[in-house]
C-alpha cells in the first residue's frame, strides 16, 4: 500500500503542467535523438545538460530521463527504415527490421518495435517500483566499506561488460580516477595536480569534461562520415501488427523485458548489452533460427523490449544506491549533483518528489512515446532527411555554450576542447569511454568511502573483509573477474593449440602412457 501511496505522490508531481511539459519535451527530444543517426542519448544528454540549469531539479531529471528512454524508442525507426542504427542499442534491430521493410512490412516492424518498447518499458517500471524501495532498505545498512565494495564491484564488472579490450577499459578507469582527483582534496583541503593554477582548484568541471568527451568528440568523428542515407521510400502502412505477429512476438517481448531489466541493474550493463543478448537468445530458442537476419519479427520485438527494459533497470542502482551502472546514468548522476540532489538511499525520504516523480513520469512518458512513435511516424521519417550540415552549427554552439555556462568561465571551454581531442583520439583507437565517465563520476565517492573506511578501522584494510556485505561484494567482484580471466586464458590456450595442431581434449580411449603417441 505504501508503494501505491508513494506512486500517487509521484503522479501528483508529474501531472503538474510544468512537469508534464518537460516530460513531453524529453520524450520528443529523445525520439529525435534516437531517429537521427550520429547523436546518441549520451551525446544528447551531455549537450542538453546546461539547459537544465535554470529549471527545477525534478523537472530537469524527468526531462533527462525522457531523453534516455525516448532515444530507445526512436532508434528503431532509423534501424528499420535506413538500416543505420539511430543509437547503439538499435544496432541489432537493423538485422531483421530493415529486411522486413524491404519485404514491404516496414509498418509491422515499426509497430511491433513501438509496442514491444511500450510493454517492456511499462513492465520494467513496475519492477523499478517494487525493487527500488527494497534496495533502499538494504542500502540504509550500508556504511563506507560497503559503498567502497559496491563501487569496486561496479568497476570490475564494467571491465568485462563494456566489450572490447579489458586492458583499455582498465586504463580508462585509472584515467577517470586520476582526473576526478585533480583539485582540492575532499578530506584535508590539500591541492592535487593544480600546479598553482587557480582554475584547477575546484577540479575539472564535470559538464565540460562530459561535453568534450561526448559532444565535441562526436562532432570530430562525424567529419569522417559521408552522409549518404538510403531512406526507405515507400508509404508506411499497417502499423498495427496482426495476430500472427503478436503470437510470434509475445515470448520474445516477455524474455526481452526480463533480460533487459536484470542486465540493466548490473554495473556495465544497459540497453546495448541487453539488446544484443536478447537477439542471441531469441535466435537460439527459435524453431527457425535460419529466419533471423532475413526479416523475423522476433528479432525486432525481443531486442527492442530488452533495450527499453534496461533503462528502468539501470535507474534502480542510481536512485537507490546513488551508483551509476553505465555512462548515461553517470551523466544523470552528474545532473542530480549539479542540482544539489544527492542520489542514494536517503533520496526516497529526503526528496520523495524526485524519486517517485521520476518513476511516475516514466509511466506517462511511455504512453507519450507510443503516441509520438506510431501516428507521427511520417514526421520522424522526414527528420531523417535533415542533412548533418543543418545540425552541425547547433551542436557546435551547444558544446561551446554548455561548457561555458556551468561556471561562466572561459577556462571550461578550453577544458572541453582538451577533453574533446582526448575523447576523439581514444574513440578512434577503439577505447570505450563508459569506464572513464563511470570512474570520473564515482571517483570522489570512491575516494571518500575508501578513506572513511580506513579512518574508521585505524588504517586496517581488513575492515573490507570482516563486514559480511562488504566481503560478499568483494568476493563477487574478484570471483567474477577471476572467472572471466580464466575463461579468456582457456580460450587463448585453445587457440594456440589449434594453431600448433595439438589436441586440446584427450580422446575417449586415452590410456596412461599414451602421451608418447603425441611425440
Amino acid at each position, binding site marked *: 500500500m505504501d508503494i501505491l501511496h508513494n506512486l500517487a505522490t509521484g503522479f501528483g508531481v508529474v501531472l503538474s503542467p510544468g512537469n508534464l511539459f518537460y516530460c513531453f519535451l524529453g520524450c520528443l527530444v529523445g525520439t529525435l535523438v534516437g531517429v537521427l543517426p550520429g547523436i546518441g542519448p549520451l551525446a544528447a544528454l551531455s549537450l542538453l545538460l546546461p539547459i537544465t540549469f*535554470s529549471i527545477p531539479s525534478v523537472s530537469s531529471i524527468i526531462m533527462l530521463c525522457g531523453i534516455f528512454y525516448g532515444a530507445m524508442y526512436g532508434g528503431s525507426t532509423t534501424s528499420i527504415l535506413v538500416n543505420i542504427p539511430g543509437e547503439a542499442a538499435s544496432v541489432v534491430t537493423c538485422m531483421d527490421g530493415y529486411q522486413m521493410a524491404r519485404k514491404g512490412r516496414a509498418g509491422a516492424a515499426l509497430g511491433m518495435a513501438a509496442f514491444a518498447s511500450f510493454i517492456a518499458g511499462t513492465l520494467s517500471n513496475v519492477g523499478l517500483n517494487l525493487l527500488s524501495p527494497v534496495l533502499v532498505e538494504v542500502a540504509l545498512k550500508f556504511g563506507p566499506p560497503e559503498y567502497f565494495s559496491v563501487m569496486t564491484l561496479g568497476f570490475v564488472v564494467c571491465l568485462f561488460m563494456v566489450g572490447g579490450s579489458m586492458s583499455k577499459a*582498465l*586504463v580508462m578507469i585509472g584515467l577517470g*580516477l586520476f582526473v576526478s*582527483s585533480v583539485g582540492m582534496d575532499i578530506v584535508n583541503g590539500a591541492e592535487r595536480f593544480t600546479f598553482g593554477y587557480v582554475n584547477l582548484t575546484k577540479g575539472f568541471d564535470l559538464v565540460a569534461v562530459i561535453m568534450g568527451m561526448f559532444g565535441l568528440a562526436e562532432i*570530430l568523428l562525424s*567529419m569522417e562520415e559521408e552522409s549518404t542515407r538510403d531512406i526507405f521510400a515507400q508509404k508506411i502502412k499497417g502499423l498495427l501488427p496482426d495476430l500472427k505477429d503478436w503470437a510470434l512476438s509475445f515470448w520474445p517481448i516477455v524474455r526481452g523485458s526480463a533480460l533487459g531489466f536484470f542486465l540493466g541493474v548490473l554495473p556495465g550493463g544497459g540497453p546495448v548489452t541487453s539488446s544484443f543478448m536478447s537477439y542471441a537468445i531469441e535466435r537460439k530458442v527459435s524453431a527457425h533460427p535460419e529466419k533471423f537476419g532475413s526479416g523475423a519479427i522476433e528479432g525486432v520485438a525481443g531486442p527492442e523490449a530488452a533495450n527499453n527494459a534496461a533503462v528502468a533497470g539501470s535507474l534502480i542502482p542510481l536512485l537507490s544506491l546513488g551508483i551509476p551502472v553505465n555512462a548515461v546514468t553517470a551523466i544523470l548522476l552528474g545532473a542530480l549533483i549539479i542540482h544539489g540532489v544527492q542520489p542514494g538511499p536517503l533520496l526516497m525520504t529526503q526528496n520523495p518528489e524526485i524519486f517517485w516523480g521520476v518513476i511516475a513520469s516514466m509511466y506517462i512518458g511511455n504512453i507519450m512515446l507510443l503516441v509520438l512513435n506510431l501516428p507521427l511516424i511520417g514526421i520522424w521519417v522526414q527528420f531523417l532527411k535533415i542533412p548533418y550540415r543543418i545540425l552541425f552549427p547547433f551542436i557546435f554552439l551547444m558544446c561551446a555554450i554548455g561548457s561555458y555556462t556551468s561556471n561562466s568561465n572561459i577556462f571550461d571551454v578550453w577544458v572541453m576542447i582538451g577533453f574533446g581531442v582526448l575523447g576523439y583520439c581514444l574513440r578512434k583507437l577503439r577505447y570505450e569511454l563508459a569506464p572513464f565517465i563511470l570512474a570520473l563520476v564515482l571517483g570522489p565517492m570512491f575516494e571518500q568511502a575508501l578513506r572513511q573506511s580506513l579512518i574508521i578501522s585505524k*588504517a586496517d584494510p581488513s575492515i573490507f573483509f570482516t563486514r559480511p556485505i562488504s566481503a560478499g561484494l568483494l568476493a563477487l567482484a574478484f570471483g567474477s573477474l577471476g572467472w572471466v580471466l580464466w575463461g579468456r586464458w582457456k580460450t587463448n590456450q585453445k587457440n594456440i593449440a589449434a594453431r600448433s595442431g595439438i589436441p586440446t581434449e584427450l580422446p575417449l580411449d586415452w590410456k596412461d602412457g599414451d602421451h608418447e603417441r603425441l611425440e
Partner: protein
Amino acid sequence: MNLTGYGMNVCEQFLNLVWVLLGLAVCVYSSGLKIWAVSKPGSGLVPFLAGVIIGVAGLVRFVAEWRADSGKTRVSSFWETTAYRNRTLLVLVGFCAMAFLMPKTGFLLSAIIVTSFLLYVIDFQNILKVAGIAGGTCLLVYFLFVTLLKVNLPRGFLGF
C-alpha cells in the same frame, strides 16, 4: 606533416607509452602528497592507485601490442583521407577560435563568424546559404539561452 601516413598501430603504441609515462608521473607526484599518514590514508592514496592502474595497464598493452606487431608493418591510417583530416582539424581550429574570441567579441558575433567559416570550408560553397544557416542558428541559440533561459553569455565590445 602528413598525419594520415601514421598507422593506427604506431598511434596505439604511442598512446600506450603515454599511459606508462603518465602513470609513472602520477605515482611520483602522489608520493609527494603522502600516500599514507601514521594511522590514516593520505591525500595521495587514490591518485597513486590511479597512477598504478594507468601505468601497469599501459605497460601490459605496450608489451602485448609489441609482441603482436613484431614482424608486421603499418596497418590502416589514423585518418583515411586528407579531406577527413583537414575537416577534423578545421573544426578544432573553429572551437579554439570560438574560445579565444568569445570573451573579446561576445558570444553572438564570435558564433556567427566561426560557424559561417566552418560551414563554408567544410560543406557549403554558397555564401548566402552559409550566412543564412549560421546566422539563423546563432540567433536561435542566443534567443533560447539568453532570452528564454536567462543564461549569461559573454558580451563583447558591442554589448551582446
